[in-house]
């Protein structure tokens, strides 16, 4: 069972200095006050996931945030997951409910 992380803030167990430096180099940010990691740079996101998976000893996926309703959802809910080149990566997307809901879409358009 993969571990689902929120890219805006997640906790990791205490790690060695070298591993911490590696995570920061790969694009993580660490908030000392809250003790939370967040994704700051997405250029090496695949390597970053590998590194986190190694630390947690389990497969890691990131939750998605819907650009329309702002809710979190998982790529496994999406029917296009097999065609997606960025599945489980923390990038903007539209959740299946919003995509189907025409009324909500029209409301969303009115914002612009």
């Amino acid at each position, binding site marked *: 069972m993969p571990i689902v992380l929120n890219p805006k803030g997640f906790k990791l167990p205490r790690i060695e200095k070298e591993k911490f430096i590696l995570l920061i180099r790969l694009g993580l940010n660490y908030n000392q006050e809250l003790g939370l990691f967040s994704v700051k740079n997405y250029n090496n996101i695949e390597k970053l996931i590998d590194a986190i998976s190694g630390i947690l000893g389990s497969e890691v996926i990131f939750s998605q945030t819907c650009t329309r309703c702002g809710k979190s959802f998982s790529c496994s809910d999406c029917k296009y997951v097999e*065609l997606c080149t960025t599945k489980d990566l923390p*990038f903007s997307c539209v959740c299946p409910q919003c995509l189907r809901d*025409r009324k909500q*879409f029209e409301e969303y358009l009115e914002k612009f």
Partner: protein
Amino acid sequence: MRIDILWVEKYRPKKIEDIVGNEEAKATFVEWLTGKRKTTKKAVLLYGPPGVGKTALVNATAKEFGFTIIEMNASDTRSEKAVNEIAKPATSYVALDAFSGGTKGKGNMLFLDEVDGIAGNEDRGGVSAIIEIVEKSLVPVIMAANDPDIDKLRPLKKVCLLIRFHQVRIPLIIALLQKICLLEHVKAEFEALEHIAQNSKGDVRSAINDLQSLSEENHVLTLQDTMGLSSRNKDISMDETLRGFFSAKSIDEVSGLLFRSSVDYDEFLMSVSDNLPKRYTNPEELAAAFDLVSQADIYRGRIGTENWHLLKYFYNALSEAAAVAPQSYKPFELITPPIRIITLFWTKGKRSMLDAICRKIGAQCHVSHSKAKKDFVPYVKEILQKKKSSALIDWFKFTPEEVDFLIKMSKY
């Protein structure tokens, strides 16, 4: 279906938020440009597959923040001299209105598109000149590339903040198509939009083109209408496009065909030129068709790599060339691939031989390749034709094959 305005053009992003997907990259870029991102990098390199919004982001940002874009793209020579002539002046002063405190008029922004295309002799010294400009620049320097991993760009990457772009996700493309349908009053089935988005493989431009071609006329789009898409986009070969082009009965038929086909425009233009004399036997018809093809060629040149809003003129001129005399069509054997490409293929061996000779002359006489070809080869040939055992052969270290080639060559 004569195309009046392409939806790709009509819905070109005007604001940063209009760009679909890559929110993270967009945010990073804006932070860098506005100085909110803590970095010492004076330049930024946007990289990722084509059609994901790199150039659109630069244009939209410039518009929104009031920058004037000074652009050098793949169609410009980007040698050290060219970069210094164009980019240096543009980056070495700050516009006076930048100090006025207004929101508009922030001065210049240097944009080097397709930097991974910098290669060969024409662009010699280009990369080092760009690095020097980045270090001394007083204005933002932005670069875009599809493949940042080529060796030549390694020094550039060191001085740039790298921002990666990913393929646009299918749900986001569907959302964009829904928005266009709403604005264009197209009644579209969700499954139809889904099919177009899946077929586009992350290329927003091709998805919008498909939507327009399928729904512009009736303003209704069903899943059945999109069924021909996958086979159409993938399987229309050059041969089929040419055959359809020449046998078309009307301008509308050709327009539709060209709009849907994904053949290489330059190669198609060459093939049309090659086949026109076979299609039109009447000299007047042939002249009229060639005139229209030459117009299409002018538009193709002006389109370059980014002025795609001119594509409709290219299509229209070509469509008219195909329909100069629809009644006179008789099936004929097509010439394909283009004669120019076949000729280049046939003469490759000869050109390589001449290149080797020019290199040897250049090395001995300390002249460039082109000077050796223009000013030396004719005389060396003349000398060798008169005296085959000339001391020149040893001096230039010509092989017997090269000597034979020089003596027999009729054109250099």
